[in-house]
């Protein structure tokens, strides 16, 4: 039998903590590790300083004419001169205020959302915004000049395509996911065929189909706007992937939930919408955000069928004979924008996933 006194809490010995120790442990622990560290540092030295020199230290940021690009670095003046093109495409300069208004309204809505938490009200506000922004951007009503979709381009077009794509692919995807789960064999096979067909072919074939073949499906008089054709193709493409993600969510719902909903007397649609879908969506959200990121990247493909998204703008802006040879600056600029959007969204998705995992507890 022995009784012990309470022990004091001491600090760790200095040889196991601190900067030197961390360096030894993480970077120089074994000869191989040391070699790797040195190679890594060499690689970084090889890449980063030259790039920084070109992009920042030797670059020209200020000015408006080509002559001001005297140093050997990047000529960001080019971007500055062409920024409207990158942002708005061929949208008439006098009407750009409408685009800026539509953008500002989003901020207003975010602020309003803090006061109205009800889902019904939020949904109505969003629908209203959708209609208002369409009127603003396209025009033709209330005295606003009509801006045909051929003039839409740049980042604005990319955002429009991505947003419309995600909004419409969502309900279609939900219905297809339900159909795939159904007991009715015909409904199930139609949905399975649709999903497997789309997932087996590249997006570009779908875009070709919707831009070349779709007009043939309708009588002579019916014309399809080029942008509309691309949107239809992209939406149906994306809906298949959304359907698969939601199906994954649906499969994770235990059958007891379906039974309990049946037992309390809910009809099929009440059961799916009130009980099953909310749970399935929660599970599927990280994958759905991933699908949105893919969609955002896929919008670049519309340049192949002749629409002028942000990526297409690089070639067009650089084709200006006054600014010949500026492709590199253009590509770097556009890469930075896309990367910022996609990386931002993937960080948001990580945050959502962590939140969801803690909610499960």
């Amino acid at each position, binding site marked *: 039998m022995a009784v012990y006194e309470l022990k004091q809490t001491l600090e760790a010995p200095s040889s196991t903590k601190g900067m030197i120790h961390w360096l030894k442990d993480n970077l120089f622990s074994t000869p191989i590790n040391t070699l790797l560290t040195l190679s890594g540092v060499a690689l970084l030295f090889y890449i980063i300083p030259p790039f920084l020199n070109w992009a920042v230290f030797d670059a020209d940021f200020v000015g408006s004419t080509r002559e001001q690009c005297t140093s050997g670095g990047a000529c960001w003046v080019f971007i500055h001169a062409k920024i409207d093109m990158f942002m708005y495409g061929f949208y008439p300069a006098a009407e750009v205020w409408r685009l800026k208004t539509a953008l500002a309204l989003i901020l207003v809505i975010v602020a309003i959302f803090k006061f109205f938490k009800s889902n019904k009200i939020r949904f109505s506000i969003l629908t209203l915004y959708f209609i208002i922004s369409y009127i603003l951007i396209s025009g033709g009503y209330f005295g606003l000049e009509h801006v045909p979709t051929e003039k839409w381009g740049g980042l604005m077009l990319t955002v429009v395509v991505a947003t419309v794509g995600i909004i419409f692919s969502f309900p279609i995807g939900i219905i297809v996911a339900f159909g795939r789960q159904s007991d009715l064999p015909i409904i199930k096979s139609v949905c399975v065929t649709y999903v497997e067909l789309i997932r087996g072919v590249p997006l570009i074939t779908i875009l070709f189909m919707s831009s070349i073949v779709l007009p043939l499906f309708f009588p002579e008089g019916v014309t399809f706007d080029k942008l509309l054709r691309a949107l239809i193709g992209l939406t149906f493409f994306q809906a298949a992937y959304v359907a698969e993600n939601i199906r994954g969510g649906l499969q994770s719902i235990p059958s007891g939930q379906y*039974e309990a909903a049946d037992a*309390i*007397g809910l009809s099929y649609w009440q059961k799916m919408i009130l009980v099953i879908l909310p749970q399935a969506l929660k599970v599927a959200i990280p994958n759905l955000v991933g699908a949105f990121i893919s969609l955002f990247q896929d919008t670049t493909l519309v340049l192949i069928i002749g629409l002028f998204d942000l990526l297409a703008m690089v070639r067009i802006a650089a084709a200006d004979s006054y600014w010949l040879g500026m492709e590199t600056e253009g590509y770097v600029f556009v890469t930075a924008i896309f990367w910022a959007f996609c990386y931002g969204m993937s960080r948001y998705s990580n945050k959502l996933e962590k939140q969801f995992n803690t909610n*499960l507890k």
Partner: protein
Amino acid sequence: MKDNNVIEIKDLNKWYGDFHVLKDINLEVKKGEIIVVCGPSGSGKSTLIRCINYLEQFQEGTIVVDGIQVMDDIKKIKALREDVAMVFQHFNLFPHLTIVDNLTLSPIWVKKQPKKDAIATAMKFLDRVGIAEQADKYPNQLSGGQQQRVAIARSLCKNPSIMLFDEPTSALDPEMVSEVLDVMIELAKEGRTMICVTHEMGFAKKVADRVIFMDAGQIVEENTPEEFFGNPESDRLKTFLDQILSH
């Protein structure tokens, strides 16, 4: 249907594919009777009570519940499920809704009750099972015993005349079993018709009017609790009682 019978099951036969899971079940339940069904796992007892509220379909025989014939007819099924409530082994509360929303879901959407009335009814029943203070919490924040009591409250909200219990305490930690059984005993004393699939023999002895033993898909023996436990007749029942009463 004979007067006073709320449930009449005649010559019920069910197959899962080739497997004959319910064999020639005949059962009559009077109003206000408390029936306990027990038997080894795989004997078909859960399947039987699920046939009563049409969660399972059957190939032969008839079931008549409170004058409604149980068959593939959405009007009849709807009326059936308003009259018959079920409590599940794994509670099956809806995790994305609060406790009170779990209870008001059906009254609001199926019975079209105004929200205020539905909430008032819900709070009354939550109080009844002793969980009123948890009304705004989510199911995952409650213990197993509490969740099961909420599930019972949820089924009470429709004021059903018949309640089915499918092994309601089997998934609970031992220390929570009694709080659920207490609620069930009180309900039994109020005069509801109850059919319970359970292994809790103490409960059966306390409130059951009849105990039924099922094995391999058929009813083997049924009797009052005293005779059932005191004087088991069939060999299969004797073996079964030995197994469950010996620990």
